[in-house]
């Protein structure tokens, strides 16, 4: 909890691009480290001996056909699904398999769902307020009052995600794209060390895509915040990707720069190939 206090620290300049101090120990290499992870539902192997390493400050794109296990992987990282075997480390200190969602979240792993999930009954403002880093125990929450700084912070994010006008409207009436933005905004309020973003541009217009691209690259750009993007849209991936990981049947098929990957025959066969057929 003390960490969170330090997050809400008064002196801090509330620029969400400046990463938060965090207990995550990345001195000895990667911020996220999955080793030999497997999980199966009713016999179907969703994840099969998956190894994945994300370096601190990296922006990683993960692609793969449907059922490749992308979402399941995120479930495992965020503690929603427990793998049958394998280990998942956040930095070199935290074994994520021993923690539950809230604990993982408060360590600084933020997640954006495939289908945007915001609290539709609450206003845009309230959505961000709930997301804001704060003491999230029951009684403090009961007595919590919104500080001026908090308000400023929320306004800032509102501006970034372009929902200033809608701040007091219920999130339920937002368009699909706007919900995507709001959700990203909520992630930013959390000031995470690692962002897991599931199909951020699904159903977005070109412009929205560009802004998203800027934002994500911007996040990781400063080199301190790590971002993992799962995306179908090849164009989008090309526009942001440095390293791309191709998942297939629950394990890594190929990894490397977009060009290398997209020329990889295996990849073309299972993925791009599949797409062409579909097309």
């Amino acid at each position, binding site marked *: 909890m003390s960490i969170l206090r330090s997050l809400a620290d008064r002196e801090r300049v509330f620029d969400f691009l400046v990463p938060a101090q965090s207990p995550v120990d990345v001195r000895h290499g990667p911020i996220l480290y999955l080793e030999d992870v497997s999980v199966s*539902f*009713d016999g*179907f192997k*969703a994840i099969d001996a998956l190894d994945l390493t994300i370096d601190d400050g990296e922006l990683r794109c993960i692609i793969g056909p449907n059922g490749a296990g992308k979402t399941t992987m995120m479930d495992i990282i965020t503690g929603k699904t427990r793998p049958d075997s394998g280990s998942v480390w956040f930095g070199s200190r935290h074994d994520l398999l021993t923690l539950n969602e809230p604990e993982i979240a408060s360590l600084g792993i933020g997640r954006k769902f495939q289908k945007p999930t915001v609290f539709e009954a609450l206003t845009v403002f309230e959505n961000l307020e709930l997301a804001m880093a704060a003491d999230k125990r029951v009684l403090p929450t009961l007595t919590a009052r919104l500080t001026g700084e908090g308000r400023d912070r929320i306004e800032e994010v509102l501006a970034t995600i372009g929902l200033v006008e809608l701040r007091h409207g219920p999130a339920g009436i937002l368009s699909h794209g706007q919900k995507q933005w709001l959700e990203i905004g909520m992630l930013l309020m959390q000031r995470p060390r690692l962002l897991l973003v599931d199909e951020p541009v699904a159903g977005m217009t070109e412009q929205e895509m560009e802004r998203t691209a800027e934002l994500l690259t911007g996040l990781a750009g400063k080199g301190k915040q790590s971002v993992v993007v799962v995306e179908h849209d090849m164009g989008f991936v090309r526009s942001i990707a440095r390293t791309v990981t191709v998942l297939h049947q629950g394990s890594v098929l190929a990894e490397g720069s977009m060009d290398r990957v997209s020329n990889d025959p295996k990849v073309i066969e299972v993925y791009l190939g599949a797409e062409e057929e579909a097309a």
Partner: protein
Amino acid sequence: MRMLPRFLSGLLCLCLLLGLPLAAQAQDDPGQALLDPLDTASYADKGEAIEAIIASGDARSRRWLEALLGGKLQRHKDTGRFVVVVENRGRSWPVVDALSFEDAGEMSRRELDRIGINNALRGQLQGALAVLDLHADEVRERREAARALLGDVDASLAEPLRAVIDGEEDAEVRRLLEQALAIHRLEEGEAEAVDALAGSLNSRVRSALNAASRSEDPELAAAATSALADIEQKMKLNRGLETLYFGLSLGSVLVLAAIGLAITFGVMGVINMAHGELIMLGAYTTWAMQQLLPGQPGLALLLAIPAGFLVAALAGVAIERGVIQFLKGRPLETLLATFGVSLILQQLVRTVISPQNRTVVSPEWMSGSLMLNEGLSLTLNRLYVLGFALVVFAGLMLVMRRTRLGLEVRAVTQNRAMARAMGIRATRVDILTFALGAGVAGLAGVALSQLTNVGPNLGQSYIIDSFMVVVFGGVGNLWGTLVAGLSLGVINQVLEPWAGAVLAKIVVLVFIILFIQKRPRGLFPQKGRAAEG
């Protein structure tokens, strides 16, 4: 009721007479003289009179005795004429003359005096009739008779019985009669009689041995006690099997009640609080059928199976169209609306039919029990229900797995939009699914009408148990419902003897609650993404 007719000679010659054609009636019928003494307040005198009738060897005795046994032998208050009532429901009854057995028109219950009997006389009459039956042609009847005589033999009967035994070719009948005699000898205090009874599980035999084991004669007491001990050994296994059967039987009832819910609730996600009332409708259909086909309860029951299904299914369609279709994707609200429906249905039955329970008769072939051995017999009605439950379950499995409907249903449950896209008419599927679930509830009602009350409250008493079973088994999984129902039934029946009925039920409920904590999605949960929705 240990005492039995002394006039055995009369009895036996009566048996000979039985075959002969009726002798022409004399003007002053001796029968009148035989029947008159029956019209007395003292049961002792009545007993005498009965013996007199038997002794008389009059060919009509049997019919008289049967009429007397059934309380049908009555006397006209004014004329003093003896009549046999043919049908004694309502205010005035059709009767026949007790002497000539010719139709005597109708008489009101005001004009008639019943020749009442009590249990002692009833025993005496049954004994007498049993002795007559020993000479029936049907082996089955003879066995029945012999079994009825267990514990009812007295000195007067002993001798002639020996004669009967020698004349009897059926081994079973002989064995039973031997036992009957042995019991008598035991009562006389013969220790060696015990050997003849050793190992028999018949309750009357055990009863006799128990009595003997308390006798002053140490030798006899010892023999009886040891015989009892090894009978107890045999009984243990029986008791175990019995409890298991009880459990399965109770379980099958739970399964029947719940399986319809497993479909509407598990597959459609509709929480149908009116499910119990659909069961009730099925039960009432059975009753209605029996009203339509008086005198043929069996046939009526068989016809009630499709009828009950239809009635409940139609009611189901009505509910789906009238209420549930407006509550798509609001499962918890279907609960509220259907609860309103259940209130209405209940009151409907109360006002339209009656707040009283209705009589549903069990057909011959469903009453009584199937005797596996002297000590273990399975009650037939429950046996049939058990079988019925399994058949219904198998049928449902077929529908869900093998038919187009089943396929579509599963498709719609998995992904409504996609199913729609593939040209499945989701609305139609909903109607059919709900109708199916409701219909099955109707079937349950038909079965329950053979076990319990058919009344407006029938549904109430099963709805909660049904939900427990479905949730415990895992929503959306028919196998789960089957396993859950049967196992809960067995657990309950195993607990009952030492915990008592109430505690047993409580324990089961608490068990379910805790179990749901451990496995929030029941015994057989649906895993993976599908379950998350």
